[in-house]
């Protein structure tokens, strides 16, 4: 078993940018680890560069040509004598080939994340679905293997319609997905069995062109669902994985991008649900851990669920990485009575080989956390990003508030155009849902975010959208 002192020999390369890079370097400092950070030319004024130099000195910051060029990362890692790589989220976080290269290159490094085999296994939609079914975990009704035969596809579609009618669904809809697709590409819905053939043809053609693969998945389309998550953590010693409760991420923008995340996933103490919400939370938590154990999960991860209006949960996918919204779960948690849980630090610790050191019963969850993603965008106009210069960004330091941002508070900041438009994450905590909502709105009200673009137009942000949505979080 690795002791904390042994861990301190490590140096972590942070293969990411923005707020997550800052959170990772802070976690490293907390653990007494050295780190090295990267930046690209458009990011040179990002706060993560300032922080890297502040926390680690000049030699802990390297300029690279692109965050997406793995060779660049390894070249820097070798030169800086890093021993481990933290991928953050996005970029290489769920790329099993990258994780494999980290582990198999001549100068081996540690990938802070699940093993590459686990990433490959759970990164594959079909594999994940089949693993779930094997363990009796509920999945979206439909096929669980790639369908290539047209007749078979049609038969599945037909019985899916019948199935939904039997379940009392008024207007059944099915989805045809390219089995090699992802990220919303190559998906179409079918409301009428007669149109199935033409949709199938279209998806197959698309898939053949795009992925050299003709097979499809056919699934029931579930409407008006809530999007829930279970935060899972496991170490590399083979001990049972633990969880840090659930989150509800149902407030999203048009393009299915999360805007507010709340922990826990439902609040039956204050809100009425049409189903046994407590049981749903317990069920999905248990299912997630069951799968994590079976898959030999060995780092941090999130099981994503959709819950239908009648309270039926279906497993959607597994994110084999740290997520943006990990902080909101950490905010309501305590380990052995200690508050101030840092899931990123925990991830690094177990990633470097340390044992978890606590069991499920040592983890307590208390109160409600709300995380707002503050973004310069126009919620009234398709959430189009706003580009320009931020002139002031400030907020009162409330005791119940945690902020994560790469936007400097003390100087102006040009929003880079090459990345996701997140500016800041604000996590608000309250003893009850009601208190959390009130504090959330108080914070949003007190937040200043001003700026203008080159044509002199004022900054547009989603703050009012977030305020509006605060009243109804966890209502289902």
């Amino acid at each position, binding site marked *: 078993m690795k002791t904390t002192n042994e861990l301190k020999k490590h140096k972590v390369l942070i293969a990411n940018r923005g707020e997550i890079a800052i959170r990772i370097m802070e976690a490293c400092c907390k653990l007494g680890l050295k780190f090295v950070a990267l930046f*690209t*030319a*458009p990011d040179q004024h990002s706060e993560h560069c300032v922080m890297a130099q502040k926390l680690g000195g000049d030699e802990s910051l*390297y*300029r*690279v*040509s692109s965050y997406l*060029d793995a*060779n*660049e990362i*390894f*070249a*820097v890692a070798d*030169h800086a004598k890093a021993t481990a790589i933290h991928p953050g989220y996005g970029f290489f976080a769920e790329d099993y080939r990258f994780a494999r290269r980290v582990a198999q290159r001549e100068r081996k490094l540690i990938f802070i994340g699940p093993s590459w085999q686990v990433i490959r296994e759970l990164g594959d939609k079909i594999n994940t679905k089949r693993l779930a079914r094997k363990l009796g975990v509920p999945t979206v009704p439909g096929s669980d293997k790639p369908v290539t035969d047209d007749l078979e596809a049609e038969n599945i579609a037909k019985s899916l319609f019948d199935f939904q009618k039997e379940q009392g669904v008024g207007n059944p809809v099915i989805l045809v997905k390219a089995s090699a697709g992802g990220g919303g590409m190559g998906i179409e819905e079918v409301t009428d069995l007669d149109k199935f053939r033409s949709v199938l043809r279209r998806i197959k053609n698309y898939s053949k062109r795009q992925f050299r693969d003709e097979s499809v998945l056919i699934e029931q389309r579930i409407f008006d669902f809530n999007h829930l998550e279970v935060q899972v953590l496991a170490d590399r010693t083979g001990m049972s994985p633990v969880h840090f409760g659930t989150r509800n991420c149902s407030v999203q923008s048009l393009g299915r991008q999360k805007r507010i995340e709340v922990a826990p996933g439902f609040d039956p103490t204050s809100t009425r649900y049409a189903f046994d919400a407590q049981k749903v939370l317990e069920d999905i938590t248990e299912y997630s851990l069951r799968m994590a154990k079976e898959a030999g999960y060995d780092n941090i991860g999130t099981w994503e669920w959709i819950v239908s209006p009648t309270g039926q949960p279906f497993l959607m996918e597994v994110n084999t990485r740290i997520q943006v919204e990990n902080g909101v779960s950490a905010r309501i948690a305590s380990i052995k009575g200690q508050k101030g849980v840092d899931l990123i630090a925990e991830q690094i610790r177990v990633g470097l080989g340390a044992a978890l050191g606590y069991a499920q019963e040592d983890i307590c969850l208390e109160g409600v956390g709300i995380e707002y993603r503050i973004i310069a965008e126009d919620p009234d106009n398709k959430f*189009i*990003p706003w*580009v320009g210069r931020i002139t002031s960004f400030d907020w009162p330091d409330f005791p119940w508030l945690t902020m994560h941002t790469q936007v400097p508070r003390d100087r102006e900041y040009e929003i880079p*155009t*090459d*990345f*996701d*438009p997140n500016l800041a994450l604000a996590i608000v905590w309250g003893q009850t849902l009601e208190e959390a909502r009130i504090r959330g709105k108080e914070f949003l009200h007190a937040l200043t975010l001003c700026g203008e*673009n*080159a044509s002199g137009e004022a900054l547009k942000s989603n703050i009012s959208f977030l305020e509006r949505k605060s009243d109804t979080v966890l209502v289902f």
Partner: protein
Amino acid sequence: MVDVKTLLQELREEPYEKIVIRAPHAGTVEFVSSTPGTRVVGPSGTWKEKPGTLLIRLEREKNKKPIYAPQKGEIMALADLKPGEFVQAGQELMTIRHYLTREEVIGRILRQSLFLFLAPEKGRYYFIPDVDIKIKTKGSQSVAVEEGLELFILSRMKRETAIRYTGPSGIIYAIYFDTNDSVERESPLIGVCPEDQLGQIQEVVSRVQSDWEEQD
């Protein structure tokens, strides 16, 4: 009409362009042409298929990549680096003094006389596919533009928006941006020559052709 004579005079006083060779990515360097004053040449051949003078080898992940001279010129200075020293992306490695060619002189003068369509926003720009194909096959001067024509795609924040051309009708005489780079707001994207000025522009061109002596 621009004062070609004065412009040419100005250029004659400073007929060089300083080309800075930067590390395209991290790696260890090895200088091949390492004496200041060495003459180098740019790519040649009918299709520019022969690379220019080999200047530097940059090795990253056991992959040695050659860096060639992009233009004809003379090595001015080298970065103070030991053989095999590690450099980061974007680090300055070498500077080359390049004597302006006729084409470049024409380009510089035209930049002052053409109508420049400026980038309305910061971001990456692409020509719309139709125009792109036309430019790639027949050259930019085959493309006529007019007010309101959908000409560019602006890509930023992972979203794409179409940009319409505003300005006088004419043909695209010069392109000033590279699809791989982010364009700052208000930097010129294209230079358009209004049809009625085509004659004058050609005059500038022939004037430079005869007046500007190229140097080796």
